[in-house]
């Protein structure tokens, strides 16, 4: 969540939501959360585990790139 919330402050375009998986089991099921942390960007790009800033940014850019 740390990188996500810093990105939210850096850009008006970015919003960051932390979800406590065990308190929201339906949401976790819908997003097939098996391991945490699990990051889902624009319901389009997802990955599990902590990643370096550059890789996180890469995922953000991938999520907004043309299909």
């Amino acid at each position, binding site marked *: *969540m*740390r*990188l*996500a*919330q*810093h*990105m*939210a*402050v*850096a*850009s008006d*375009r*970015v*919003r*960051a*939501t*932390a*979800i*406590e*998986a*065990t*308190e*929201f089991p339906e*949401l*976790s099921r819908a*997003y097939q*959360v098996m391991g*945490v*942390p*699990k*990051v*889902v*960007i*624009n*319901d389009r790009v997802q990955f599990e585990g902590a990643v370096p*800033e*550059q890789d996180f*940014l890469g995922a*953000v*850019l991938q*999520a*907004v790139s043309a299909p």
Partner: protein
Amino acid sequence: MPILTDRDRAAVRKEFEKLTGPVKLVVFSQELLAGDLCRQNEQLVREVAELADTITVEVLNPAIDRERAQAYGVDQVPAIAVEGARDYGIRFYGVPLGYEFSNLIDAIIVASTGEPALSEDTKASLRALTADVEIKVFATPT
């Protein structure tokens, strides 16, 4: 009974020395949906807010304050919106305990300073975004 220990309070107070501008924590609670968790969430936020003069707390009930909850984009409880000079779009769903607690404290600090700890390249790439980005981060307390 308090949620935070004396040691937690001392550690957070030290972190809060970094605060520069005001922060508002908007708590979303709905007794009928998740009473225990909402009470715990509200208590946690109030205990954190007590540790710095620059932090204020507002509690909204999405069933009553419907329009405002919608404006915040919050449709689940318990939830927290962390606002600084503006609403940066930072939300926490669920009670941020354990590992998430340190993220809440970090969110308060970055919302207060408005200065993200990111590289210049990352900041430039984010400034150039032309589409909205919604990042969800699923976590557990331990």
